[in-house]
């Protein structure tokens, strides 16, 4: 007998193999079948995953665009010609609007299907069905917020024959046509990793998307943090640290000033801590945000959007120019997808779409361009409710009468369908109610109100002038945005657009309210007099049309000068450093070019630096006796700094660290109670840098004193010197002696995470030309940044340039996954192709052609 490997099976003739061989084969096969068929930990079963035809390897086969293909498109009335240019942008030529929306749904699904599903599930609170129990709490919070619930209600209330509903349905047709034509080998990579399959797309999901944007752009719980600050340092100080009106006035609506106005006041000293009040406020806040995921008030990480426009008389070409760069949380794939939608004689619009939406969100057509920044208005209010039963409420008190609570049962399920958690969400007439500590609090939020924002985008896509564009956005309700527009006739205009609540007066919870018209306090829910009584009339919105100064800009700052209109619109506005910088650039240049606008989008200068650098150097100079060596070295280094946050700069890191040290020392009174003294980083909230600048004007203010040093009273210059010394020592400790190791690019980096935060599919540690207060600010974890940059020249032929961090494809294996990243990092823009006819794209400019034809049986009918 001869036995071959493996297992000695090779028995010549019919002699039986040894039992050991049979056992070995049985065990080996069982093991192989087990790893092939059964998921191991969170991973997929290996058999299906590694299958070259149906598994993960097939992802490579659809990573690139085919030169030419044709598919049927359910619901289409006529053939649709989709031409992908050399930047993989689809130019969709259709005979009617519904077919354009269908085709857009199809190409969105083809390039970004997993993104569509994950963002939909995030709103609906069904992530656990895809990702397992790790997202259970996220799902529960999403359901408690009621975004999907309100979006469904809003969508149901729309006229079924309205353009918005028709568009959402047509778009869903396109998405589902693609999904239904897929085999498992066509699934995006993430589905292979999760062992899942795509879900169908429902028209209402487009409304979910808008709700999600509302969450991103218009959700603040600052009232609760403010309550904590008040408990820590008293009401007068809290009001000055987080003021209704910005102390540096550079509003969006021009006020005739030729320079920013500094309305500095003396910040009241911190009062004694109110322990009982703080405990309550902290309990409520912790209950509301158990993961500490919500940004603190004063954090300057999430905002940075800019837009500006110049009228023809201030541009080199004599045409209106517009630039925009909305800053958002960066992700791969990007939130944006470029597209060009054409229906002859009706629609010809180019720009970026949100995945899940059938319209161009930011862009331009043959006549007009538009872009947004976030307004940051206060559109959320909280009400402390009186309920009949703390544990299981059924009624709440309003004007002395008990009202019945609506109850909504929300069950989060696993993929198997098993219930993971069931919650009862109560609603008052204001909105969903949650228990925060011992208090039941309901929330009214414009995002949860019925609205028809989708229709506004559809009308904007068709606008023929800046005036028409603004008219289209009169129907835009959430989330409040500063809409900037310019047209080919040379008009420029801006309006802070959205629903701004008018708040009623009435009683307030004991010790809570000071100003009934404001929304920065938790209001008493037992009185209907505290309810909203309506929304601002559009005529009162912050706005401007063809201002005499010849330019307009917005950078998330307070929209109106409070001397012009003192009404409450919000509070804790971001510092206007970016507004000051861009307005200075615009005032100084009466012949602006598109290229200058491109450069300004990544301009490395910060107006903030001018103020703080001067203060640091003055403090170092004014010391008597002479300063210690670290201060002297730091001052020497900063004195020779050009104030620019370029990648190769070797001084910016010292300045940035000194500013951080300054905030640590100055705001020590705002430290989290109970935290060890050396932990000066964690604060209940941090006043933004313009408040710190305001304090610089008051050298002996009690806020400069460090509470823990009871034997000495520090003043401004002492703290500035201490900060300089500490910064120098810290930077040397981290980076070594001054030199190339101090290059700014080693410190300031962008981190663009994959949607599932998979490092292999993320792009991390990207060096950036950005600093605190620059037009392209970068702070914190580097996860926020310019999500889209665009410059448009409104001449006889509209010309435009743009880019975003990522690429059109959501497939990590595709060359189009991150192909735009190099230019985005360098601050460059691509020329955007804007052909009038499909045939204008040919040869080198054409990558792929997709023909979508009506379903044959439909065509016969």
């Amino acid at each position, binding site marked *: 007998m*001869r036995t*071959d*490997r*493996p*297992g000695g*099976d*090779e*028995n*010549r*003739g*019919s*002699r*039986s*193999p040894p039992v050991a*061989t*049979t056992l*070995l*084969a*049985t065990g*080996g*096969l069982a*093991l*192989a*079948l087990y*790893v*092939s068929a059964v998921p191991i930990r969170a991973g997929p079963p*290996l*058999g*299906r995953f*590694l*299958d*070259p*035809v*149906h*598994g*993960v*390897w*097939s*992802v*490579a*086969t*659809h*990573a*690139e665009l085919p030169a030419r293909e044709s598919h049927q498109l359910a619901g289409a009335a006529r053939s649709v010609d989709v031409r992908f240019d050399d930047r993989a942008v689809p130019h969709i030529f259709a005979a009617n609007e519904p077919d354009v929306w269908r085709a857009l749904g199809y190409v969105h699904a083809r390039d970004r299907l997993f993104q569509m599903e994950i963002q939909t599930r995030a709103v609906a609170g069904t992530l656990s069905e895809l990702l397992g129990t790790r997202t259970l709490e996220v799902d529960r919070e999403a359901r408690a917020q009621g975004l999907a619930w309100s979006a469904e209600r809003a969508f149901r209330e729309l006229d079924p024959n309205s353009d918005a509903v028709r568009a959402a349905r047509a778009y869903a047709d396109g998405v589902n046509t693609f999904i239904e034509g897929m085999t498992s080998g066509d699934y995006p*990579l993430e589905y292979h*990793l999760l062992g899942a399959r795509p879900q169908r797309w429902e028209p209402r999901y487009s409304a979910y998307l808008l709700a999600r944007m509302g969450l991103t752009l218009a959700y603040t719980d600052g009232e609760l943090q403010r309550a904590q600050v008040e408990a820590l340092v008293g009401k007068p100080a809290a009001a000055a640290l987080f003021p209704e009106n910005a102390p540096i006035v550079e509003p969006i609506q021009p006020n005739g000033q030729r320079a920013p106005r500094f309305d500095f006041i003396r910040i009241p000293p911190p009062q004694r801590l109110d322990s009982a009040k703080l405990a309550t406020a902290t309990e409520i806040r912790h209950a509301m945000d158990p993961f500490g995921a919500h940004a603190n008030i004063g954090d300057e990480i999430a905002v940075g959007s800019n837009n500006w426009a110049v009228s023809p008389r201030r541009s080199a070409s004599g045409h209106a120019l517009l630039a925009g760069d909305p800053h958002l949380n960066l992700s791969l794939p990007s939130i944006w997808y470029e597209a060009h939608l054409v229906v002859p004689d009706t629609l010809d619009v180019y720009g970026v779409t949100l995945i899940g939406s059938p319209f161009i969100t930011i862009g331009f057509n043959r006549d007009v361009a538009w872009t947004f920044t976030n307004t940051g208005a206060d559109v959320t209010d909280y009400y402390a409710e009186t309920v009949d039963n703390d544990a299981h409420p059924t009624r709440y008190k309003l004007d002395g009468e008990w009202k019945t609570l609506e109850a909504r049962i929300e069950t989060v399920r696993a993929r198997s369908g098993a219930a993971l958690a069931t919650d009862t969400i109560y609603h008052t007439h204001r909105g969903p109610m949650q228990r925060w500590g011992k208090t039941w609090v309901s929330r009214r939020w414009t995002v949860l109100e019925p609205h028809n924002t989708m229709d506004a985008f559809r009308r904007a896509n068709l606008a023929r002038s800046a005036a028409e564009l603004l008219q289209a956005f009169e129907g835009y309700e959430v989330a409040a945005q500063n809409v900037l527009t310019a047209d080919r006739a040379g008009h420029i205009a801006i309006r802070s657009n959205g629903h701004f609540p008018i708040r009623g007066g009435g009683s307030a919870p004991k010790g809570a309210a000071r100003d009934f018209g404001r929304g920065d306090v938790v209001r008493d829910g037992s009185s209907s007099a505290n309810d909203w009584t309506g929304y601002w009339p559009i005529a009162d919105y912050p706005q401007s049309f063809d201002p005499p100064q010849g330019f307009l800009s917005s950078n998330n700052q307070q929209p109106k000068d409070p001397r012009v209109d003192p009404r409450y619109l919000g509070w804790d506005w971001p510092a206007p450093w970016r507004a000051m910088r861009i307005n200075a650039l615009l005032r100084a240049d009466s012949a602006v070019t598109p290229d200058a606008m491109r450069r300004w989008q990544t301009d490395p200068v910060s107006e903030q630096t001018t103020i703080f650098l001067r203060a640091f150097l003055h403090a170092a100079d004014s010391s008597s006796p002479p300063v210690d060596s670290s201060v002297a070295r730091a001052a020497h280094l900063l004195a020779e700094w050009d104030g620019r946050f370029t990648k190769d700069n070797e001084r910016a890191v010292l300045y940035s660290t000194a500013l951080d040290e300054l905030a640590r020392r100055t705001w020590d009174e705002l430290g989290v109670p109970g935290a060890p003294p050396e932990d000066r980083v964690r604060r209940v909230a941090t006043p933004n840098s313009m408040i710190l600048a305001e304090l610089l004007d008051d050298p002996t203010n009690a806020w400069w004193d460090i509470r823990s040093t009871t034997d000495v009273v520090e003043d401004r210059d002492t703290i500035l010197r201490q900060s300089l010394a500490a910064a120098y020592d810290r930077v040397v400790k981290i980076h070594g002696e001054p030199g190339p190791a101090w290059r700014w690019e080693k410190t300031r980096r962008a981190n663009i995470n994959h949607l599932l935060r*998979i*490092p*292999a*599919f993320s792009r991390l540690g990207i060096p950036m030309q950005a600093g605190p207060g620059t037009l392209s600010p970068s702070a914190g974890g580097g996860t926020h940044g310019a999500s889209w940059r665009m410059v448009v020249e409104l001449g006889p032929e509209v010309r435009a340039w743009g880019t975003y961090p990522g690429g059109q494809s959501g497939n*990590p*294996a*595709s*060359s189009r996954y991150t192909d735009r990243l190099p230019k985005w990092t360098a601050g460059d823009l691509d020329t955007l192709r804007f052909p009038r006819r499909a045939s204008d794209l040919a040869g080198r400019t054409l990558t792929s052609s997709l023909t979508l034809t009506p379903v044959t049986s439909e065509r016969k009918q």
Partner: protein
Amino acid sequence: MTVALRLVLLAAAMAVGTAAFGWVAVPVIAAAWGLIARLQRGTALAAGLAGMLAWAALLALDAARGPLEPLAQSLGSLFSVKTIAVYAVTLALPGLLAVTAALLARSVATQRS
């Protein structure tokens, strides 16, 4: 029929089977092969090689249609292994399935006969 030709035909059957029915076709075809060729030498080894050959051919087809190497690099990075290991596991799996299935089928068949 030469050994090489048998191997190629078996691999082709497994490739077609994978395309039609997925990975499960590999052990099924290998088991069938173990029964049919139970009297021949190298039955299990041939099945294992054919499984690997079949998936290697299918991977080559994938590579011809798209960027396989960047995908392999991403997967290697994802699982913290070298790129070559991703390929190796992909080819080892059908090999293991096929060799054990063929071996078991042959063992059972010869014990009964």
